[in-house]
């Protein structure tokens, strides 16, 4: 029996470079009996580009997503990409008061808005935490991590509905539930630079280098993230940033969903982890958490 039925809006990057995140979310949802139904014929939310140079388009694009979602029976929507999460929630707040939005892209109000869930917050609810802890077969003993939340799932608080936007706890609670040790650190919600990695790599190198440095200073072995842009900047570009800083950080970056999959022995973990560019396996082997059958 499915305990939850949710509409699912994956977002563009989960179809491309962040396939591992998409697959891990679908994998753990299957094992936790959550039924995800993709929004039919969804489109891009416009991301940073649209809200930077064309505010009207950014609201209209999200309006169309809600139009598509209105055909679905589900009243709650799971959005793994924090950027999309932020854009969707921003449009809910802004669109009713926006004069320029075209009528055909107005968010349909009759049914009320679907509740938008950020994945980290969704899996940190009391009910999900209990379901997950029942499934845990291999507690992640000895794994010391810092949780990195990034910007868009938290800020601004009136959009994210997050009460602890300076010191969020959802990932820490999930990780603790799995038996690992989350370390408190000051850079939980500091920016990684996101898409600036293409246009101003020097900025991203500075920001992410600071994150690595602090993570190492507080004694973390790895970083846990819930955002595919943070993951890209921290994982894919790690070697380059190490070269810029002239230091070896060697921090594996895990999605929280991969850790849930690892702890509850979901099939496919190996595939998800092997698409990382910073090798995630040596640390797991060292701690005795990786025993492929």
């Amino acid at each position: 029996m499915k305990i939850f039925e949710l509409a699912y809006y994956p977002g563009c990057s989960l179809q491309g470079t962040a396939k591992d995140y998409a697959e891990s979310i679908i994998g753990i949802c299957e094992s936790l009996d959550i039924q995800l139904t993709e929004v039919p014929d969804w489109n891009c939310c416009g991301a940073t580009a649209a809200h930077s140079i064309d505010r009207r388009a950014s609201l209209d694009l999200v309006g169309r997503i809600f139009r598509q979602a209105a055909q679905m029976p589900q009243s709650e929507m799971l959005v793994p990409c924090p950027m999309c999460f932020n854009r969707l929630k921003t449009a809910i707040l802004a669109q009713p008061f926006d004069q320029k939005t075209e009528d055909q892209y107005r968010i349909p109000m009759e049914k009320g808005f679907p509740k938008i869930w950020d994945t980290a917050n969704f899996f940190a609810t009391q009910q999900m935490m209990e379901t997950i802890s029942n499934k845990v077969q291999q507690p992640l003993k000895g794994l010391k991590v810092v949780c990195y939340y990034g910007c868009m799932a938290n800020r601004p608080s009136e959009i994210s509905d997050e009460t602890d936007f300076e010191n969020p706890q959802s990932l820490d609670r999930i990780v603790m539930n799995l038996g690992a040790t989350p370390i408190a650190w000051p850079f939980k919600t500091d920016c990684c630079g996101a898409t600036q990695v293409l246009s101003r790599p020097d900025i991203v190198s500075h920001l992410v280098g600071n994150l690595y440095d602090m993570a190492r200073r507080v004694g973390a072995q790895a970083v846990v993230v819930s955002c595919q842009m943070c993951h890209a900047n921290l994982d894919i570009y790690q070697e380059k940033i190490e070269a810029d800083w002239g230091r070896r950080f060697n921090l594996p970056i895990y999605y929280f969903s991969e850790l849930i999959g690892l702890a509850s022995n979901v099939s496919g973990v190996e595939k998800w982890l092997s698409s990382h560019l910073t090798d995630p396996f040596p640390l797991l082997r060292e701690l005795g958490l990786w025993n492929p059958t």
Partner: protein
Amino acid sequence: MITKDYKRRENKIEQMHQATLHPNEIFLQQLEADGKFDADVCFQCRKCTNGCPVTFAMDLYPDEVIRLVILGQREAVLKCRTIWVCAACETCTARCPNGVKIAELMDAIKERTLLERVPVPQPQILTLHRTFLKNVRKWGRAFEGTLLPAYLLRSGQFLHKWRERLWGWDIKFGWRLLYRGRFFHFPKKIRGKKEIRNILIHHKK
């Protein structure tokens, strides 16, 4: 790693001196008409600037941008690097004690810059935004397989790297991405792409 641009800072202080002589509210009103940002309630506590992660790459600090907006220093604001360097991380908006929507104001200023055809000091950032929207316009969703090459070509990075023989790292990087299975997917045009074209009608280029 990045040294601050002191020359620009001196110019800025000079502009601020002139600004005290001729305050002008029209610019503020124009921007506020695009959305409610409440910039006029700023009391210069500088919490935005102190929390901003990218001030090291800015010429004007966020609080200075707001001050200049209030004073009507149109040119200084529209020409500054700050609005483009801003990573839209929303730390400033989240922390502002007066509820000024600073990050959103930066977006509104960017739009006005384009509307008034003021030259952009960080063309590669604008190119990335334009390439992204053109990409979305074509497929209905962003497709990284063509987005990245198109951006490298349009921004001139490809040419620059080719001339300076800097592409060794990129080729290795691209190969590693391919090897890890991060690029193996095909673009999918959505059925509603006509609607998307309609929404992004101004982003053909």
